[in-house]
C-alpha cells in the first residue's frame, strides 16, 4: 500500500496505481492538484510504488 497525504489527512491506495488514479480515488479534480512523490513533483502518469511518500497538494486558492 501507498500512504497518500492530503490536507493534513492520510489515505491508503494500492501500489501500481498512477498518480492520476490516486487523485481520482480521493475524489479530487486533477486540474486542481499536484502530486509530490518522495518530495519530487511528478506528473499524473507516475506509477506509485510501495514505500513511496506521496503528498497531494491543492493548488486552488480563493477569496
Amino acid at each position: 500500500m501507498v500512504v497518500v497525504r492530503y490536507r493534513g489527512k492520510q489515505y491508503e491506495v494500492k501500489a501500481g496505481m498512477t498518480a492520476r488514479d490516486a487523485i481520482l480515488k480521493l475524489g479530487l479534480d486533477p486540474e486542481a492538484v499536484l502530486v509530490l512523490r518522495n518530495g519530487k513533483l511528478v506528473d499524473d502518469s507516475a506509477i506509485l510504488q510501495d514505500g513511496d511518500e506521496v503528498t497531494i497538494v491543492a493548488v486552488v486558492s480563493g477569496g
Partner: protein
Amino acid sequence: MRDSRMKCRKCGRPAAINMRRHKLALCEECYPAWFRGQVERTIRQFQMLAPDDRVLVAVSGGKDSLSVWDVLLRLGYQAEGMYIDLGIPDGGYSTESKMRALRFAEGRGATCHVVSVRDTYGLSVPELAARRGRMTKACSLCGLVKRHIMNGFAWERRFSVLVTGHNLDDEAAVLMQNTLTWQTGYLARQFPVLPADEEGLTRKVKPLCLMYEREVAAYALVSGIDYIQDECPHAVGARTLFYKEILNQLEHRSPGAKAYFFAQFLRAKESGSIQFVEEGAASLHPCERCGQPTTAPGLCAFCRLWQADTETHEGEDET
C-alpha cells in the same frame, strides 16, 4: 516493465508536470526556465514593466505572490515586497504567512515591508468584519482593505508599479462571475495593466495573468519556494472558489478552455470589438480623510469602513 511515464519534451527525463493546454510535459530542471520565459513574454506583451521601474510586489506568503516576486528578482527587476498583516488568528494563519514572506526576502537579500492593519488602524480584518457584521463577506472587505493599503503605501513611497500575483484562474473566475451577472463596470476595468491615470493611484500589473494556478504552484514547488499551502480560513465558501471549480470542469473536458475564455476577452477589448461603458461613472476626487482617489462623495469606501454606522458596498473603489 516498460517505463510508461511521460517524458520531458526538452530533455527526455521523467516529466514533473504535463500541461495539456500546451501539449507540453517538462521535468523539474526544464520547467522553471520555461515558466519564467512565459512570464517575461506576458510582461513584454502588455508592456507591464520597464527596466528602471521601482517595483513593489504585494506578497501574502502564498504561491502566487512569492512566485511572481521570485521571477521578477531573477529577471533583474528592482522589486521590493510588501506584506499586509491582516491579523487572522485561525491556526496562526497570518503569523505563518508573514514568516514565509519574510524568510523568502531574507533568503534573497530583498526588502519586505510589513504593514499591520491592527497596529495602523486599531482593528484586525476579522475584528473589523465582525464589527461591521460582514463575516460572511470577509473576502470582499479584506480585498478593499488590501487594495487601499497597497495603493497608499506604493504611492507614498514613490514606487512606480505595484505588482500582484493574480493568475489566470483568478482572472477567469472574476471574468465569469462578472459576465454571468453583466457587471459591465467591472468588465470595463478588468485588464492585466491598470494605469495610474489619476493623482494618488499607482500603476498596477499582473505578470502571472496568463499562467494557470496549477502552473504557478508547480513553479513554487520545483523552485523550493516555501509558501503557505493552507487556504485562508475566511475563504471557505468564497464565490471565487465556486467559479474556479466550474472552470476546472470545463478545462477537464476541453484543455485550454480557461485560457481561451480569458485571452479572447482581452483580445476583444484590445481590438475594440467589445466595449463597456461605465454607467454613471463619477470622476475621481481625493477622499476627505486619507486623500486617496475615490468616486464616493466625502470619504472613500475604506475610510467609511472604520466609521461604525456607515454603509460600504461590495466592489466600491475598485482601484
